[in-house]
Each structure stands twice: as C-alpha cells, then as structure tokens.
C-alpha cells in the first residue's frame, strides 16, 4: 500500500495504467489506461468483447492482469488484494445478472451486506444494533423496497432484484460502485427509476456504469468512455463521443 512513484493528479478514485489481460493469446484488455475522479458518475460503453467486464474483473480482483497497475483512491494497490479485501477496501460491484440471496428475505439480504469486520465466529453471535437497523431501513427507503422487506428475495421482480443488489452495495458504504448493465431487461418505468437512483447516489459515491442501453446512458452520463478491443477509443461528454467518427464507425453506427 505504498503510493506509486508517478502519482497522478489528486482526487482520483480509480487509476488503471497500461493494463493488459490476455486469455489464450486473445487480448481482452490491451494496455488500458483510464482514471475516474472522486464523486464522478462515469459511463463505460463499447461493443461486445470490448473489455468492459474484464476491466471490472481486474478492479475487483477476479482477474489478475498480465501487465500494468491498478490503484484505488491513489494509495491502494488493487493487484495486491484478494476479492474480499478489495470489497473491504471500499469497492462494491453489481453483477450483470441480478445476484441476490434468493432464499433469504430482503431484510436479511441487506443485513448480510452490513459493512464491517466479517468472520464466522463473530457472525455466530452478531446481533443487529439500533444504528444498523436504521441503516437498513434507510436503504430500504432509497431503493423503494420498504414494503418488500419481509419478502423472499427470490420472489422479487427483475427490477426489484437489481435495486436490492444496489441496496446491498450501499450497505457497504463503498467509495466506488461498479455497476454492470443495471437496466438490462427492465421495463421503461423501471429504467427511469434506476436512472434516478444512480443519479441520486453519484454525489456521495463514485460510480462506474457499464451499459448497452444508449438512451439510458444519455439520460445519466456526464462523461462517457468508449472501449474498443481492450483499449480506450474515445472519452468525453456524451455529445462529443457520439459525434466522434471512430466511435460512430465501431459502435454507434452499427
């Protein structure tokens, strides 16, 4: 956890430098260099195979790059940490497919997501404190799941599961939230509510959203990064990116 020698400008929540990942010769990431500011809501788009999910895998410790470096909040070396350690450090990840604990209730899902030191022996005797209960109630409110608190998560609708999963990430009070395709399979109304939810979170947290739905990206994005073949193709506000001829050629035009 030593600061890198060539420190980028302060205020970065995530810095990827020259990250390369190859699977059997195929370069999923090819010298990807990318940084995200604290408090930013960044959208990442790109065609299939552009390396979006691999990038998330690198940040969360699921995949180790062959080359390059990844820093969180400028002083945490992500490549030296395991998946749980990265989660503990303050990075939350929402999977593409909604992943919640289906046989537990909504409340229990959020309870398990409580931030803190986690060990089997402590959890054997752990009791919810009043503050923790309040926190869960707040998150139920933010995600609009208050009336579903006692329902089994497996019985929720697709959209509700996505919100529950985001709620579980919020329980962790992460500094950086990685959100993979939050509106895939959602109704227009659910999509709209998800956009509102993410925008309301952007001030207190830094968010990286990977999404295919261009209308959705347009509705939330302040800054967009386009990935293509494992590297950054274009970067900037939505208007600029949309009119970039390179982007139009590989992605938007398709």
């Amino acid at each position, binding site marked *: 956890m030593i600061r890198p020698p060539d420190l980028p400008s302060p205020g970065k929540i995530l810095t990827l430098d020259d990250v390369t990942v190859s699977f059997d010769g195929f370069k999923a990431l090819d010298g990807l260099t990318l940084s995200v500011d604290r408090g930013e809501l960044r959208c990442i788009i790109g065609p299939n195979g552009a390396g979006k999910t691999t990038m998330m895998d690198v940040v*969360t410790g699921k995949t180790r790059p062959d080359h390059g470096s990844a820093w969180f909040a400028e002083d945490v070396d992500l490549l030296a940490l395991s*998946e*749980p350690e990265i*989660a*503990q450090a303050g990075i*939350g*990840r929402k*999977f593409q497919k909604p*992943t*919640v*604990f*289906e*046989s*537990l209730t909504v409340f*229990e*899902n959020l*309870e*398990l*997501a409580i*931030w803190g030191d*986690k*060990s*089997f*022996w402590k*959890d*054997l*005797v*752990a009791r919810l404190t009043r503050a923790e209960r309040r926190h869960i109630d707040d998150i139920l409110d933010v995600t609009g799941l208050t009336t579903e608190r006692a329902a*089994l998560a*497996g*019985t929720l609708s697709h959209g509700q599961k996505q919100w529950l*999963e985001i709620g*579980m990430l919020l329980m*962790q009070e992460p500094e950086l939230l990685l959100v993979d395709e939050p509106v895939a399979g959602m109704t227009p109304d659910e999509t709209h509510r998800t956009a509102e939810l993410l925008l309301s979170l952007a001030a207190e947290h830094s968010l990286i959203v990977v999404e295919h739905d261009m209308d959705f990206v347009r509705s939330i994005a302040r800054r967009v990064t386009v990935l293509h073949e494992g590297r950054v193709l274009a970067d900037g506000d939505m208007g600029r990116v949309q009119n970039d001829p390179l982007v139009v050629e590989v992605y938007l035009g398709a």
Partner: protein
Amino acid sequence: MLTRVVRVGRRLWTAWDADRGGTVLLVLLAGVAIAVPALNQLAPASSALHLSTYSLSLIGKYLCYAMLALALDLVWGYGGILSLGHAAFFALGGYAMGMYLMRQIGSRGVYGDPILPDFMVFLNWQKLPWFWVGFNHFWFALLVIAALPALLALLFGWFAFRSRVTGVYFSIMTQALSYALMLAFFRNDMGFGGNNGFTDFKDILGFDLHEDGTRVMLVVVTAAALAASYLACRAIVGSRAGRLFRAIRDAESRARFLGYRVESYKLWVFVFSAVLAGIAGALYVPQVGIINPGEFAPINSIEAVIWVAVGGRGTLFGAAAGAVLVNYAKTYFTGALPELWLYALGALFVLVTLFLPRGLVGLGASRRRAVQAGAAAPVIWALGSHVGVSLGSKLK
C-alpha cells in the same frame, strides 16, 4: 403470579410458533427419554408394553442415524454442500469409541492378554501400537471422537473450499475419501482389526453392555445428544453466520464481493457437522456392538442423503424424522421382503425427488422455501443416477 404465568406461557408459545417441527422433535425425544426406561425397566417382561432388548438397540440405532442426518442436513440442506462422505466421519467416531471398548475388555478376551486386543495377539504383535495408547481412558476416547473427524474435515475442507471445489465434484471427492478410508481400514496391518473390525465388547465405564439398564442409559444419552445437537444446529442456522451460509449456496460470488471469506464459513460448518457425525458414530457402536470397515462404505453416505431428502432438507427436524422413518422401513422390509428393500429405497428416493422436493415435511408446510427446493433439483438428479449405479453394483 398470574402475570408471570402469562409471561412464561407467551414465551413458550413464541418458541413453539417459531419452530413447530423442532419443538415436536424435542418433545418426542423427551418422551423417548422417559418412556424407554419406564417400558423396559418397569413394565414386566410378560407385559405387552414391555420394551425388549432388541427394540432398545433399534431405537438407539435410529437416534444415532437421526444425528447423522442432522449433521448432513446442516451442510447440505443449508449450505448446498452435498457431502457423500459423512459415513466416514461417523465411522471414525465409531472406531475411536470401539478402541476404548476394546481396551475395556482387558484380559477377558479369548487370548486373555491384559493389554493387547485379541486381533493383535492373533497377528503376533508384541506391543500396543502408539496410536492405541491412551484409549484405556474414556476422556481420551471422547477427545478423539470429536477431534479426529474435526481434523479430517478441517484438512479436507481447507483444501477443497480454498480451491473452490463445489457441486458434484465436491460430492465425488468426499465419496472417494470415504472409499479410500474403507480400503485402508480393511488392511490388517493398519491396526484396527482388518475386515472384522472390533466386536465382543464387554462394558463401558464399568457398566455391562449386555445389561438392559446400560442399554437404556445409552438410549437416553443418545436422545439427549440428539436434542443438544438439534439445538446447536438451530442456533447456528439462526445466526448471521448461518444466514450467510445459506447465502453462499444462493450466490457464492455475491457473498465474496460483499467482503466475506466464504471458505472459512463453509469450513467451520463442515467441521462442526463432521464432529456431530463422529459423536453419532461413537454412540452407535456400543449399542450395535460392532464396528467394521463396512461403515465407511459409500452406500452408507448415500443412504444418509436419502434420509435427509425423504424427511425434508433444510429443516433439521425433517432430516432427523426422515432418518428414523426410512430406517424403520428398512428394518421392516429387510425382515419381510429382504430382496425388495433396495428397490423400495431407490423408488422412495425417486418419488420424493419428483413429487416432494421438500420431503415429507413439505407436505404440511407452506411454500416458503419452494425457491431453494427448485435450486436443489439438478443436484438431486445427479445424485439419483449415482445412487442407481451404486445400488445396481450392490445388487450384483
């Protein structure tokens, strides 16, 4: 006074309402602990109510099996970890108890050696092997009964869970572990009596094992151990650690990204379950009077899985009930229609899988856990084919 009665009444009602099946189980066990001594010791032998020695050992055996089922349900029903090697932990506990019982025989053996058990004299051994030292003490045997299954589960689980071995692969590995132990224990030079195992036990803690009074006490102790195990399992399942254990079954990677070291949760529950199985095995041996390598047989672990599936997995009390019911049926069938028993067992398993994915317990309860039963279907199918093959080879 009245308010106190009301308060106690309300607390009892809440306890009953929170876990009806479990309360019934505990009440039944208390009933066994009262009725068995009464019917065996007080009812005259000529009376129709008299409980025979044979019935005593059957009841004791069923209760031990119920404890094994409880242990298995904890890891399989809640954590989705299908262990097909729980018979190994059961047998190890049994062997540890057997070693104590063998040393208790002393010079009353056929060869009359005060230290060496008969089979060692027969093999011309001059000295007690080092791993038999200490088993003349009951407390030492108790320690090993718990520690040996725990150690094996810790070692095996540590490697398996750390390498993220799951599902059918985990099941096959546990099956292989059990099989390897069976082959090892069959060898005479292992020092555990080879294929004959241990038998001809005389007494336990100075009480004659052929006396009904001793057997009654063993049944009562087993009932108490089963009740205590049930309460311990319920406490684990009801804790946050227990909820996380279920959560791991639903979505392991989600739990990992929430910052949990899921391996350690799996490992500790697995170790606890192995200890329960070991204690069950230790209680089993003095009541049936024999332990041999056959207890490690793969089919034993599979039968235990069937008890749990029939009773209703993920309920604890259902698993215990399933063990007693299936074994009662086994006792009846192997007496009345011996050649049909394995077919009946196989058919029972297939029928329960198809029509009662939540076991017999699911008949009466609401659909609260329908979701998790659905998730179990592929595992049950994989297992079903496995059972089919095992039964087929056994029939030959």
